[in-house]
């Protein structure tokens, strides 16, 4: 691959530093692509280890039942079967997974004593190959005593509801009542109070590659080595080590260069990593397990479904005075770490781009007989923005104002940045009014309303939806401890949590070429490419001179608890680590060159592969020569210089602190902005929603690779649209899972995917060296609200209220024909 330098070097201003950038900002082609285009990627299922055996999992057919007995004799006698591990043994061989709430209940990697959702692992067979393992799974006999199931989150908090975890006594895994500002006064002063009930469905961004694990226990060293497509956060490594009851350094996680999508979902693979580790320990052999699609749909992970009640207090002019939110979050059968993060991850940005100061959040994380939940693209934000933006529309409707104007009325102005929200979030930069202006201009909003008027006069159901949101990137680990009451956090001996570090390691070889490794686990985001761009700029070389290897190994890489590729971290904290590492290396090169050239360090600069004195350009040597000396000729190295040329840097944000006693926390670090305008038409005969147009404006700070950024926007938007229109992980009242295949769980294809008209504003972050922010989740957070708003607007003339997703034809048809609803 030969790279032409771009025509115009760009000047960028960030962090007060003038940076002459050549490669950052360019849509360069991805480094990852050649291997992926030719079938030479390395995904977990492409890996074999010596003497590898294969596992299949027996799963619960019941939503709620007591396990009376197992009979594994026939399975064990089946030719090719090596071992069977039952849930009962899992209970003996491992400890319950820790989770950051005070509620006492036990969660293991397989059902112990009781099954609590359809698909819960009951036993594992290890055999010579997968076909044989699946044969043997069918030979295991398990006797159950069925128990009454509960799947409805509102019913699950009733006093007479069946209880999943007897030791808890009810189904509430976590409850916090959080008050910021003076909500009561805000509601007293209001001209108008509105209250609505919202239902958000359970869906998953659903990667095409399923969970994959190869676990290998070494009985001599007592060490577990686990290959998987785990994506972080590596705090879950600690959770897995606790369950296996071993020291963290005896649990080695290896992630290959390629993960087939994740979108948060593969954060929750760690219980299977533990389960297969136990299976390997029992079988005495390395064990591979590749999840099948049905297993993935019913028993991997997904986002919560929730019922929420929102009340807003507003003035006549549309000014929002206060917000009350009661949340019933359905986390499934076990509150599984990092849950209840779904509720608290967006705490700092809970009111999005609006300046309202009085907020009450009454949040319940409720356990029901559904699959446990976990991070999913947007994590917690799509739910709050759905509720928030529907309320903004209702305020507009009630006060007969334009929905754009109601939003403008409440936006945090650019001058207020950096802005601290009542919940403690610190928005680092942004110009939200500018973003709204741009989307209004791009969509020709006024004209669009005229088109709508005309369409309505023809009897068409034509709607325009608006959704704005603040996009949090790089979670501060501390936010999750909001799940614990302040009294608990104040106890002596309690270790507060805060932080969000990422690391990068850079090496220059003796001929001046560079290799970089990161503490990240990308799943298609193009980290290799972006790091080559950044390092090339920092060192004055080209991306061709840089090799980045996307692989992760807890035994080899620099990492910390917060490492991984989640919460839109990379473009913000990952790139910052790469910048710091490159700058550290550059400093070393200059330091050594100063010694070799007998010139003061401060006079030396690096340009086009040469180190030279600013005022005396004849005094120079090539970077290659400096590197050659560092590696080959230690005799010339001053005493204070290490041999070789390498640097490791860890970037962390100073703005990360643990929650204060008032439950305020800066839950993320860099905060972007997005606003969508969706235009739809509803077919009254079929209930089908057709997207006619879509405008999407983003502020992700400095854009490093616009091609990759737009790819993220497209992907994120379609996840939100899929969840709003098609996708739902559905259960019947008995807790039976209804959507176990792609025939039932309907994902959008190329025919349904809309063309987005994307616009950008740019408010560089003052916190990151390049000014960049995360953007991988953005539209996944606002697209569901935009769809709901547009369909709500389309159906408004019929007096229909849209407070529930997904808006699939069945649901829309039922809204249109309430009397015939069945």
């Amino acid at each position, binding site marked *: 691959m030969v790279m032409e330098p771009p025509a115009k070097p760009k000047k960028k201003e960030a962090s007060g530093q003038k940076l002459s950038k050549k490669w950052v900002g360019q849509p360069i082609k991805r480094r990852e692509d050649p291997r992926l285009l030719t079938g030479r990627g390395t995904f977990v299922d492409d890996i074999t280890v010596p003497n590898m055996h294969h596992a299949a999992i027996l799963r619960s057919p019941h939503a709620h039942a007591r396990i009376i007995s197992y009979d594994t004799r026939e399975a064990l006698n089946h030719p090719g079967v090596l071992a069977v591990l039952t849930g009962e043994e899992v209970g003996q061989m491992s400890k319950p997974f820790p989770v950051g709430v005070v509620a006492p209940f036990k969660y293991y990697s397989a059902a112990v004593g009781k099954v609590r959702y359809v698909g819960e692992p009951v036993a594992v067979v290890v055999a010579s190959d997968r076909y044989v393992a699946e044969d043997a799974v069918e030979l295991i006999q398990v006797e159950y005593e069925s128990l009454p199931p509960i799947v409805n989150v509102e019913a699950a908090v009733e006093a007479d509801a069946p209880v999943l975890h007897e030791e808890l006594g009810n189904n509430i895994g976590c409850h916090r009542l959080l008050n910021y500002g003076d909500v009561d006064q805000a509601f007293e002063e209001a001209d108008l109070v509105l209250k609505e009930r919202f239902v958000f469905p359970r869906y998953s961004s659903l*990667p095409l590659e399923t969970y994959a694990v190869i676990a290998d226990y070494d009985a001599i060293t007592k060490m577990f080595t686990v290959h998987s497509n785990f994506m972080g956060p590596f705090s879950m490594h600690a959770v897995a080590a606790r369950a296996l009851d071993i020291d963290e350094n005896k649990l080695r996680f290896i992630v290959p260069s390629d993960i087939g999508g994740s979108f948060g979902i593969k954060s929750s693979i760690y219980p299977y990593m533990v389960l297969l580790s136990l299976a390997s320990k029992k079988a005495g052999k390395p064990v591979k397990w590749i999840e099948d699609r049905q297993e993935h749909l019913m028993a991997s992970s997904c986002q919560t479904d929730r019922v929420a009640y929102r009340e807003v207090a507003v003035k006549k002019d549309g000014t929002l005075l206060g917000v009350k939110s009661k949340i019933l979050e359905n986390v499934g059968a076990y509150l599984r770490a990092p849950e209840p993060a779904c509720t608290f991850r967006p705490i700092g940005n809970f009111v999005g781009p609006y300046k309202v100061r009085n907020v009450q959040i009454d949040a319940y994380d409720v356990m029901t007989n559904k699959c446990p939940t976990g991070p999913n693209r947007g994590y917690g934000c799509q739910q709050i923005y759905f509720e928030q933006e529907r309320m903004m529309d209702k305020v507009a409707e009630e006060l007969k104002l334009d929905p754009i104007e109601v939003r403008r009325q409440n936006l945090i102005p650019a001058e207020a940045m950096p802005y601290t929200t009542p919940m403690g979030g610190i928005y680092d930069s942004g110009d939200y009014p500018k973003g709204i202006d741009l989307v209004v201009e791009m969509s020709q909003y006024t004209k669009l309303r005229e088109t709508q008027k005309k369409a309505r006069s023809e009897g068409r159901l034509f709607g325009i939806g608006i959704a704005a949101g603040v996009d949090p990137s790089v979670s501060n680990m501390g936010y999750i401890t909001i799940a614990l009451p302040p009294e608990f956090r104040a106890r002596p001996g309690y270790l507060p949590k805060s932080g969000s570090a990422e690391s990068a390691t850079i090496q220059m070889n003796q001929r001046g070429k560079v290799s970089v490794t990161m503490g990240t686990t990308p799943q298609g985001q193009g980290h290799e490419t972006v790091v080559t761009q950044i390092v090339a700029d920092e060192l004055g070389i080209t991306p061709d001179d840089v090799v980045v290897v996307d692989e992760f190994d807890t035994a080899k890489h620099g990492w910390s608890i917060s490492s991984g590729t989640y919460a839109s971290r990379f473009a913000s904290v990952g790139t910052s680590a790469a910048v710091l590492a490159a700058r550290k290396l550059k400093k070393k090169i200059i330091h050594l060159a100063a010694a070799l050239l007998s010139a003061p360090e401060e006079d030396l600069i690096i340009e086009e592969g040469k180190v030279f004195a600013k005022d005396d350009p004849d005094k120079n040597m090539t970077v290659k020569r400096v590197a050659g000396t560092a590696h080959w000729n230690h005799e010339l190295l001053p005493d204070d210089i290490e041999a070789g040329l390498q640097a490791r840097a860890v970037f962390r944000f100073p703005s990360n602190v643990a929650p204060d006693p008032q439950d305020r926390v800066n839950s993320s670090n860099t905060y972007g902005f997005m606003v969508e305008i969706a235009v739809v038409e509803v077919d009254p005969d079929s209930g089908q929603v057709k997207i006619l147009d879509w405008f999407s404006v983003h502020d992700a700070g400095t854009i490093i690779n616009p091609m990759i950024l737009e790819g993220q926007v497209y992907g994120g938007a379609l996840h939100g649209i899929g969840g709003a229109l098609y996708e739902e992980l559905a259960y019947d009242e008995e807790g039976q899972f209804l959507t176990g295949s792609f025939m039932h769980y309907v994902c959008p294809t190329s025919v349904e995917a809309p063309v987005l008209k994307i616009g950008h504003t740019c408010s560089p972050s003052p916190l990151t060296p390049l000014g960049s922010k995360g953007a991988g989740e953005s539209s996944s957070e606002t697209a569901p609200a935009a769809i709901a708003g547009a369909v709500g607007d389309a159906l408004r003339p019929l007096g229909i209220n849209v407070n529930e997703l997904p808006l699939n034809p069945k649901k829309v048809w039922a809204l249109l024909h309430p009397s015939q609803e069945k």
Partner: protein
Amino acid sequence: MPQEFRSIQITVNGETYHRQVEPRRLLSDFLRDDLNLRGTHVGCEHGICGACTILLNGETARSCLMFAVQADGAKITTVEGLAQNGELHPVQQAFWENHGLQCGFCTPGFLLTAFELLERNPNPTEQEVRVGLSGNMCRCTGYQGIIQSVLAAAEKMKGQK
């Protein structure tokens, strides 16, 4: 316990393989595990996602919905067979230039589907491309990069003729 094996002969990417397989062995598993051609990916094993798409005697087929024994005597092209002599096929090149992939898991299936689509219709409209690709799922790209890639490949291939 099906221990009965069948002898089959399959030509993949121009190379002929003789193997003994269980009748129930899926063609996708045969390609991946027996021939070690790991480029063919398995995303659903029920024929919807299209990640496992191959060319079977020149036509696209779902290798997860076939047994290897059904492909006895067939000529198969997998993603590994698209690039020739170290040169990417124009379809692959176009995916690279137009950000037609992110994680790359669905990509082999899309490439072979696009290859067949352009063979049958060298001048597709955008709508024809959308319909032609609608049997394959991608969860990363929102499809726009893929659609652009196929349209760009059509242009590229026109120029080559």
